[in-house]
């Protein structure tokens, strides 16, 4: 191959974009098989990994190579045949690079699904064609909507076991579509597949001539994600102040951070919160030199034209488009701690963008049943995997947006002050 061709290929590989997706589904619906199949069909499965799995399968007396062993990496998982925790896997096609958050189907499911979905561009829910929608399918669809994952794919799996019956597919698809209509799901794609046999995974299958949609991989490669980012509301949480102690670089003061949303350009008028002081962007620096603009998810360093006091936890925005500066926050909280429930009156550390504060739970308005969406207003607390609407009061103001408008400035975690464990995940509904 000529050098020129190599360089073109290399440049192409470097310009691929990135899609993060979370997989969900109930036990035995074939999730591990589907992931194994995606890895296999995109040549992301290595022969030594496959050989190791084949050897372990044979030693255990499994009748066929158990692809779940590829994804269940821990001793305890292999011993018990279950998936304990979220794992991350990687594959690429010439068009895109993919990160899969592989979330376990049972045990601690809500917590894990919420974790995997928090950074996902797309959620993939599997159902077994023989069983149709189950409680968990609805729960996962609800969580996808709650976490505002922009794209949802429902894979109706094991179609081979129902003889590729179009009516089975349509019945499940209709039922799911009408359920999803009650949620805030904007982009839904439904694909009939057989993960075990590889139908409609990497390419369209001849077994479903009645299905006119894309294969799963084609959809993953082409789903439009560029517009999912918020390029309107400028939000730049200041992460770290760069002030070199150097005789070469003098008087440099830059505010380092990752653009949460919006587009920043030199010359833009900006406001700094919580002080409310205004200034202009003098330059946007990177180690490779200054840039003309910065947008998500770029990590850059911003310099301003005025000397104002700015530190970590502050936020740079536009003067007429600012987040709330709020000590009273209402949010949906998913509780993640098995040892102690969320209680009214309890105090926690809250981490929101680059800002940390103390917070007290002022009230629990209701606990939501994630299966029926019923609201229990008499619930006294939130236990592990429970979700509820909570009122919080913080010691210092948060610079916050509604989660539905901004996943970065609308999300937070709660930390137990005694154990330092991450005990809750919150999505802001209202901040004032």
């Amino acid at each position, binding site marked *: *191959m000529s050098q020129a061709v190599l*360089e073109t290929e290399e440049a192409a*590989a*470097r310009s*691929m*974009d*990135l899609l993060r997706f979370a997989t969900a589904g109930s036990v035995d619906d074939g999730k591990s098989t589907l992931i194994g199949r995606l890895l296999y069909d995109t040549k992301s499965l*290595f022969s*030594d990994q496959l050989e*190791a799995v084949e050897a*372990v399968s044979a030693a255990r007396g499994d009748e066929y190579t158990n692809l779940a062993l*590829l*994804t269940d*990496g*821990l*001793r305890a998982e*292999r011993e018990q045949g279950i998936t304990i*925790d979220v*794992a*991350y896997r*990687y594959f690429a096609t010439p068009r*895109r*690079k993919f*990160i899969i958050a592989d979330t376990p189907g049972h045990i601690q499911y809500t*917590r*894990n699904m919420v*974790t995997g979905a*928090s*950074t996902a561009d797309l959620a993939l829910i599997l159902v077994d064609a023989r069983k149709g929608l189950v409680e968990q399918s609805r729960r996962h669809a609800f969580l996808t909507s709650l976490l505002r994952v922009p794209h949802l794919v429902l894979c109706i799996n094991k179609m081979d076991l129902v003889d590729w019956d179009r009516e089975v597919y349509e019945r499940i698809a209709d039922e799911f579509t009408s359920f999803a209509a009650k949620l805030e799901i904007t982009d839904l794609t439904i694909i009939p597949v057989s993960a075990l046999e590889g139908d409609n995974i990497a390419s369209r299958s001849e077994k479903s001539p009645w299905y006119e949609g894309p294969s799963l991989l084609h959809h993953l490669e082409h789903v439009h994600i*560029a517009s999912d*980012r918020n390029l309107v509301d400028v939000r730049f949480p200041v*992460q*770290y102040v*760069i002030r*070199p*102690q150097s005789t070469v*670089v003098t008087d*440099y003061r830059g505010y*380092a*951070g*990752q653009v949460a949303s919006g*587009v920043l350009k030199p010359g833009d008028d900006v406001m700094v919160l919580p002080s409310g002081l205004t200034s202009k962007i003098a330059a946007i*620096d990177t*180690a490779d030199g200054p840039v003309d603009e910065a*947008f*998500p*998810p*770029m*990590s850059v*360093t911003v310099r301003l034209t005025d000397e104002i006091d700015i530190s970590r936890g502050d936020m740079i925005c536009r003067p007429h488009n600012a987040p709330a500066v709020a000590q009273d926050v209402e949010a949906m909280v998913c509780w*993640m701690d098995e040892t102690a429930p969320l209680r009214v009156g309890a105090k926690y*550390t809250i*981490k929101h963008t*680059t800002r940390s504060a103390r917070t007290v739970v002022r009230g629990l308005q209701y606990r939501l049943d994630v299966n029926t969406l019923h609201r229990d207003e008499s619930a006294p607390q939130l236990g592990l995997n429970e979700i509820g609407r909570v009122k919080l009061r913080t010691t210092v103001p948060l610079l916050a947006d509604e989660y539905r408008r901004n996943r970065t400035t609308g*999300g937070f*975690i709660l*930390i137990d002050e005694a154990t*330092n464990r*991450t005990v809750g*995940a919150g999505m802001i509904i209202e901040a004032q």
Partner: protein
Amino acid sequence: MSQTKPYRVSHLDALEAESVFVMREVMAEFERPVLLFSGGKDSIVMLRLAEKAFAPARIPFPVMHVDTGHNFPEVLEYRDARVTELGLNLVVASVQEAIDNGLVRELPDGTRNRIQTPVLLAAVEKYRFDALFGGARRDEEKARAKERMFSFRDEFGQWDPKNQRPELWSLYNGRHHPGESIRVFPLSNWTELDVWHYIAKERLSLPSIYYAHDREVVERDGMFYAVNEFIVPRSGETVQTRTVRYRTVGDASQTAAVLSDADTVEKVIDEVAATRITERGATRGDDKVSEAAMEDRKREGYF
């Protein structure tokens, strides 16, 4: 709409931005971070990311090499040159010294990967490091696929896979009590191929052993080990000169080379893209000890 700008970010740029964010988080929230630097390709990429995160200031933390004493000389040379070039403070935690002082005992097979762990932990205690950057990637190994970006370790440096902190959005919880620490893996979401693409993009120099060269090797358990002071041919093994390169750099007594003609970064990328064997599967004797060798080592405090 006159909107013509796509505001596109390539996957490598997105990965770089995420890693830089993680490094800045650590610098902002910890007292005494340190970056584990072995002279291997992943830690070389880490150093570049650290340069990017804090420019135009210098990298604001020291680097540490846990030195097994079983080194490829080219790698040590590279390490020292890079440290000097960047004006870094290098801490060396020496396994040989620890053996001489009686902290650890040489294993019967002479390999030192496993006894690195107590040496690492002793250095963490001595210097009171509270955040340790490591270049480990989740694509390397199945136990690593379960690893968090911020990995909590107790006062014994132990990883408890059943009791990890959930990680949501980009909100990393680095809280810990004195004596406890956090291992931080900014390259978690990178693959071997991403690392090579980044090396090409940034034109990073690497120790020469990453590129094809002729070397005297013996074939052992299906892998090619360089003949040197740590690898002595056993009876029945014949020494042969082959064109090889290294995919990973570790303890020289346990790290094997792969047959390869790839003598430039472009050729290596081509080869890595086409390979059907994982990096660790092709080159690491230590991972073949058992199905859960990596998990077991991590539980003891290894990276």
